[in-house]
């Protein structure tokens, strides 16, 4: 009878320890991410370079000619 009592106490202690450890790890694993308060601005003008416009000019002219119903 005595043996089982000690065993039960040991089990209770280890259970408490486990609960404490779980609680601590939950605290340590908490990562906070803050959302930016300003909208992200992308300047689209940078994407259009003159050399690209010159390269696409022939295809653009063709597209307008062939699809006159939408231009």
């Amino acid at each position, binding site marked *: 009878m005595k043996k089982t009592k000690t065993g039960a106490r040991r089990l209770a202690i280890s259970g408490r320890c486990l609960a404490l450890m779980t609680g601590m790890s939950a605290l340590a694993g908490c990562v906070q991410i803050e959302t930016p308060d300003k909208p992200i601005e992308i300047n*689209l003008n940078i994407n259009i370079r003159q050399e690209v*416009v010159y390269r696409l000019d022939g*295809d653009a*002219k063709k597209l307008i000619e062939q699809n006159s119903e*939408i231009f």
Partner: protein
Amino acid sequence: MTKWKPTGLALAAIAATAAVALAVPSAMAQRDPAYAAARAAGQIGEQVDGYLGFATTPTPAIRALVEDLNIKRKAAYTASAQSTGSTVQQFAFTSGCNLIAQTKPGEKYQTPGGAWKTRDSGPPERDARCP
């Protein structure tokens, strides 16, 4: 007699398909006279970005018409951008350069600064990157 029935039906089906196929492109090619009128009146014009815009507050009908054309333009720009290895925006902008150049005197176009200007007999004010 039994052979006649399916043949007749098939012929009717072919005729119906042909009628639909003929009707669709002709309806698409037909320009809404309201579009030409709004363009000539300077209510709508060519924007720098390759799409149509409103120089003055449009009627709901004109707005719907322009929005429909802009959707079709975007689809065309998207397809061309893919085949030329460019972005939709790059292709649309290059088209805008050409569309502004093609405006007729009296029609509206957008200047690089964003203002609406009426095309006169001289060359239009375009972005420095336009060819």
